[in-house]
């Protein structure tokens, strides 16, 4: 029995931060209810008080803006959007205000705000209850975008995000909540030093992924291993600012790249990953043209038949890897 799952690892990060840092508070919808955030915030309001765990009106824009303003006043707020789709109302606070602030005031003030957006999809919820918008956010200079795939990262990168002086989009995925792991004591890490990490070494191809896609990659790697194919899995972890160094090294070694991403194809993270690698490699260093697996460029459907083909699965990843190996 492991000591944490992905959800309780997030809860542990909240507890650590709220215990140790008086300037941390949490604001968002659903924080006093068990309905919205799984097991990731259980009883925080009872333990730390409703003045620090603020469940709010249905006002994504004002609550996110208020967190930005509080962060300019010496606080380290965490805004929680239990479903990332709803936070599109908060785009001005995130994109125009938080992300720009440091630059436009000459580096004299920094909004140390963490915005937690939860990807909560599947179950025939459809177009406005399913989105994964990390590629969008990764396009914005000034905004750090963190996507933990592992139980350890769910905890440690949330802590690192909140302790970072920059605005951070921390995006977790409900499809990862059942992952378990044994975690050591909390270690504070500097988010600026965090980048992509190789989760499993391989020699035949590199699968590059983030968030839930990384879990798919790891599962596919096991199946491929049974077929005699050795896949390396690189987990991006921090999508912006994006440091492609490790990915480039991996692909240089294996000669084959599969970019796996749970957002849309056009201008999505998979495109950035492939472009960053290709522009750093000589033409002869690739043994096959890079491939990618993404969502189809369509809104999420509701009908189960369509939903089944909408989200990438392990079989798709294995097939794509086999196709790469056939070249």
């Amino acid at each position, binding site marked *: 029995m492991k000591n944490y799952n992905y959800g309780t690892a997030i809860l542990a990060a909240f507890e650590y931060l709220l215990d140790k840092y008086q300037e941390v508070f949490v604001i968002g919808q659903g924080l006093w209810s068990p309905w919205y955030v799984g097991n990731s915030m259980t009883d925080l309001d009872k333990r730390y008080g409703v003045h*620090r765990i603020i469940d709010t*009106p249905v006002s994504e824009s004002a609550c996110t803006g208020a967190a930005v303003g509080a962060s300019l006043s010496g606080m380290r707020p965490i805004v929680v959007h239990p479903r990332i789709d709803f936070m599109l109302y908060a785009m001005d606070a995130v994109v125009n*205000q938080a992300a720009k602030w440091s630059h*436009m*005031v000459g580096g004299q003030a920094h909004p140390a705000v963490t915005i937690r957006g939860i990807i909560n999809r599947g179950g025939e919820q459809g177009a406005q209850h399913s989105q994964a918008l990390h590629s969008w956010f990764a396009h914005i200079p000034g905004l750090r975008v963190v996507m933990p795939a592992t139980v350890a990262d769910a905890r440690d990168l949330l802590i690192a995000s909140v302790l970072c002086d*920059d605005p951070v989009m921390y995006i977790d995925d409900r499809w990862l909540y059942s992952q378990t792991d044994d975690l050591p004591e909390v270690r504070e890490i500097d988010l600026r030093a965090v980048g992509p990490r190789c989760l499993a070494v391989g020699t035949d191809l590199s699968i590059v992924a983030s968030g839930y896609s990384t879990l798919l990659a790891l599962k596919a790697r096991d199946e491929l291993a049974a077929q005699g194919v050795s896949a390396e899995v690189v987990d991006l972890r921090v999508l912006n600012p994006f440091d492609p160094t490790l990915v480039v090294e991996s692909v240089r070694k294996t000669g084959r790249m599969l970019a796996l991403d749970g957002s849309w194809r056009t201008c999505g993270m998979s495109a950035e990953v492939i472009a960053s690698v290709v522009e750093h490699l000589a033409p002869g260093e690739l043994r096959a043209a890079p491939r990618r697996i993404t969502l189809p460029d369509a809104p999420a459907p509701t009908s189960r038949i369509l939903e089944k083909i909408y989200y990438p699965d392990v079989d798709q990843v294995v097939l794509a890897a086999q196709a790469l190996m056939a070249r």
Partner: protein
Amino acid sequence: MKNPGAIYSLGELASPFSFQQAIDVGSRTPEQLRTLIFGMLRIRLVENRLAQARRQGLIGGPVHLGVGQEAIAVGVSECLRSSDRVFGAHRSHSHVLALGSSVRGLFSEVLGKDAGLSRGMGGSMHLWDQPNGFYGSVPIVAGTVALAVGAGLAAKLQSSDDVAVAYLGDGAVEEGVVHESLNLARIQNVPVIFVVENNLFASHMHISIRQPKDVTARFATANDIPARVIDGNDVIAVTEAAEEAVIRARHGGGPSFIEAVTYRWYGHVDWRDDIDVGVNRSQDDVANWKARDPIARLRAAMVAQGYWSADHDADLEAELTLEIEEAWERAMQDPYPEVSALLDRVYAK
């Protein structure tokens, strides 16, 4: 007007033909009044200098001038201290100057220089002077309203009696986040003061063709926030309304809303009058509003009390002109930011 919920029209407050007389300065001392007239005239001369420089092509970016509206920032700032948290918008030269920012810092910023308030990275529309209590201004017109609520919420969490101020215009009230912010501020009992400078125009559009009623304080009433609707060209009226709101906020009474009715003499942006580019802004309107001049009305009151004479005019103007011209010359000679600033300031060091 103390009961804006019952008001359906600004009425005389929106008319240039009313409120042209000397203001009532009550029992204010000559020193207090001199501070107010000095503050207002300083802002006006600075903004006129910016208008001139923009017209001459010396300023590269847009400047949104608030000449005619000086009484609001000066009156509100009278009641604040440097640990308070003030946010502005696109037309914020007056807000930052009234808090005590240096003229050279503003000029240098408008010119994109490293010695500017925002180190040359913001220009006229992104001003910052946190040491003086100015947390920032942005041109997304309602963009800082929620930020001010958050700054006030932070003060509350920090057990401080500092207050936050959100300056916004009558146009910003048409953006949804203002309504979310009013509700949030009230339900969280946040020490924040919403100061609406209702100058009757958003860009080229008169309020009568943008909103069914011209009293923006109706939204405060809807959110159960105490509101005052006042003559924004009466610096004493502004000071009194601000004093009441600041005391309320400092003592745990939550948010307040002040609607100060005013008029901008220049057009929406830069030095032009903007006659006929929109609707309901004639040359006559502008001329009539200039007769409701907040500075002239304070001056008239001071003259009537024997506190002021034509000699004072000349002295004050000479003193301010000297400060402003020196500041302008220095700003013109200030260096630009290093090229490295482009990438070095995206994230915290």
